[in-house]
């Protein structure tokens, strides 16, 4: 259905003919589902076209140019930016950092999130209050999260260092975000803290629909707690976990704010993820073409992961 046909259909129904058709009981017949459906989809289609599809194409186009941010034209370099990219150690370094960042945050989110969901699935007094509170880090603005963790991590008066030193776990305060050895885990911890609620909510929702008689039957068969967890709980939630892990991986891989605001990609590029490298190339060194080329590579990685997701959905129509 071409959009202009749909508009024409709407025009035909406009004004007085609308009432006439309705009187005649022919409105539903005249305005067939397909027409109205397309009309309702038009605003979103227009939004996608102008704000997503065109910019994507324009981004790919820009990646074939050497172009300064203030330069109206730029110089055609063909695949030059990609050649530069794949021969550049910093690109491979950032790809590695991004992969580890996504892997570490998602892995910890899944394991901790499942544990927390299991805990909140047990009955105890005040459970609904705790369930509510656990969501809060997700609702907190990223900037507030980043600022409070900067204060908590502070080497001179940060409370984390105070507690670690006072309890004898470490001998001297750690400059969490400015030491190349600890910065990566420093940002990972914040990423886990902020986005854990999501995994908790989704796993908890899944736990609540596991049929109780499965557990009864297993108990009668003499299965212990560990066996019941592995054979029933884990088996039941594994599809949800896989989907959540996949989606979280994409979001963490693409996440710019958390790491950029905490460390700016440093110290010594220890936390230089791909989105930060895009930013650095495009707005730090004003190489829009190189920045675009990195972003395009990120886009194709996204397509690859999403294909896995869609293939999985096809297999499990639920």
């Amino acid at each position, binding site marked *: 259905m071409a959009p202009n046909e749909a508009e024409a259909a709407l025009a035909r129904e406009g004004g007085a003919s609308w009432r006439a058709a*309705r009187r005649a009981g022919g409105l*539903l017949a005249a305005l067939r*589902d*397909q027409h*109205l459906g397309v009309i309702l989809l038009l*605003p*979103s*289609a227009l*939004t*996608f076209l102008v*704000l*997503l599809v065109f*910019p*994507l194409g*324009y*981004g790919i186009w*820009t990646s074939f140019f050497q172009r300064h941010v203030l330069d109206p034209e730029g110089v055609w370099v063909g695949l030059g930016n990609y050649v530069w990219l794949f021969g550049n150690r910093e690109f491979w370094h950032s790809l590695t950092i991004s992969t580890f960042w996504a892997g570490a945050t998602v892995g910890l989110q899944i394991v901790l999130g499942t544990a927390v969901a299991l*805990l909140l699935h*047990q*009955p*105890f*007094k*005040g459970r609904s209050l705790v369930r509510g509170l*656990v*969501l*809060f880090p997700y*609702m*907190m*603005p*990223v*900037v*507030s*999260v980043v*600022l*409070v963790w900067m*204060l*908590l991590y502070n080497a*001179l*008066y940060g409370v984390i260092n*105070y507690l670690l030193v*006072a309890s004898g776990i470490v001998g001297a305060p750690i400059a969490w975000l400015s030491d190349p050895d600890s910065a990566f885990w420093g940002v990972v911890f914040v990423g886990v*803290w902020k986005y854990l609620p*999501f995994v908790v909510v*989704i796993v908890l929702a899944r736990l609540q629909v596991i049929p109780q008689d499965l557990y009864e039957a297993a108990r009668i068969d003499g299965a212990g707690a560990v066996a019941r967890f592995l054979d029933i709980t884990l088996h039941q939630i594994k599809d949800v976990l896989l989907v959540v892990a996949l*989606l*979280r991986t*994409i979001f*963490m891989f*693409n996440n710019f*704010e958390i790491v*950029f605001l905490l460390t700016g990609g440093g110290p010594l590029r220890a936390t230089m993820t791909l*989105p930060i490298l895009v*930013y650095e190339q495009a707005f730090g060194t004003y190489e829009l073409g190189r920045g675009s080329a*990195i972003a*395009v590579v*990120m886009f194709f990685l*996204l*397509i690859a992961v*999403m294909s896995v997701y*869609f293939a999985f959905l096809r297999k499990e129509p639920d």
Partner: protein
Amino acid sequence: MPPRNAARLYPLVLLLLAFVAFPLYWMASTSLKPQTEVFRVPPTFVPETWTLRHYVELFWLTDFGLLFVNSLKVCLVSTGLALVVGSLGAYALARFRVRGKEAYGRLVLLAYMFPGALLVIPLLLLFRQLGLTNSHLGLSLAYLTFAVPFVMWVMRDFFASVPVDLEEAALIDGASRLGALWDVVLPQAVPGLIATGIFAFLFAWNEYLFALILISDESLRTLPPGMMRFVSTTDTNWGLIMAASTLATLPMALAFGLIQRYLVTGLGAGGVKG
């Protein structure tokens, strides 16, 4: 399961609460301590002296009020637009037989996952041509790139879960499809729209990269880039910075307190952004 387990659970629950709530508590309590107490070692876990000085300073000495209002404007406009555009599309995907609907649904999900780093360069170039840089409307439009797919993705499932019977009854009574949407479906969709709207608002409220790149005029700045500026310009006035962080959290805390029940629905249904 009998509550005999409870005693064993509480230490774990307390640990969880400490992990989740301590940063929140630290943010709020630091904002209420005088400057000298903020830097004290060992730190005071309960403020010795309580003061609202940082909050007064925030409005008298910084442009926090302006940043807050600017952010509110941009986020409300983008959320409103996204709710209208997105729920119309979501309703169509949930109820109508449109050719290519499934493919379109997938495109929506893909759009929802687009990295901001990919869009920011072409959007800057495009918006500069259109005169939409340094404009709150421009930034609101940029936020539609994630808000519209998000609303469509969540509301599609929501509309699909609303029983068709009432709509059919309205149609038999002579209502038009659009009339049925407005009078019958919309009232039932309100909780879903509120929860979805709050998340769309939250994502916009969080957004930093577009806000930094598309707006350079200081008087138009929004909260995220504006607040990060406090870290360097006000040196290490952590009391002030924590007061700003607390106030920036406030709208979300209010929304959270008011409709926590719906939020869980919204988050579970597809609030997988971040």
